């Protein structure tokens, strides 16, 4: 039984959030009042861009592709 595979595109998202939010938070940036704004905007905007990307990829893979050679070979 194979486990469901996560989209590979989650790797850059996880790394981006790790570098821009998690690492500064671990280093004490949470003491800065502006950090909450930065974290909310980073998670919100990157999450929205990721969802749009995943939706576009899903839509693209749902559209049946017709290659040039197979299209020409059809009657």
């Amino acid at each position: 039984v194979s486990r469901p595979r996560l989209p590979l595109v989650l790797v850059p998202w996880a790394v981006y959030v790790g570098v821009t939010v998690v690492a500064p938070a671990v280093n004490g940036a949470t003491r800065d009042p502006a950090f909450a704004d930065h974290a909310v905007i980073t998670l919100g905007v990157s999450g929205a861009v990721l969802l749009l990307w995943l939706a576009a990829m899903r839509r693209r893979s749902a559209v049946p592709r017709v290659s040039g050679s197979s299209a020409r070979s059809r009657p």
Partner: protein
Amino acid sequence: VRRSFHAFPPGDVAVAGVALGAAWALKAFYSLADAGALQWILAPTVRLAQWASGVAFAWEPHVGWMSRETLFLVAPACAGVNFLIAAFVSLCLGLAPACRGTGERAALVAGSAVAAYAATVLANATRIALAVRLHAAGAAWGPLSPERLHCALGVAVYFGFLLALFALSSRAIEARRATA
């Protein structure tokens, strides 16, 4: 735990180790670097942003690149080093499982470094060119103050470029595999 650890080939673990070690070293350097020490990434970025936006920037020693016309400063915090780290680590961690052999893995690490640097200069120049316009217009939108809008624009541009870089690199590896 042992079984899941063995699910990762030693070559992939080595690539992850090199990527994370380089990221840690770059982050440590960046935390202490002034504008002069970051010229290797600031100068090409500002030149490209200058060309794209038409706004002139002048070098201010120890401070960064300043546009006197719009009072916009490209400081060390705007160098894009966090994006450079994210791009390099993403490519190494995400694409290592597609590599076979030490040679391919070494090429992945070297190629990721070059691609991450080029993508950083391009993404950051785009971000600065747009941010200068936003700054000059004093744009704000509802709860998005000019500072928040600047931050949101930066995340959207950087993360969009990161996804595009990752997708292009994945395709390049797939195409190379298909022709091999």
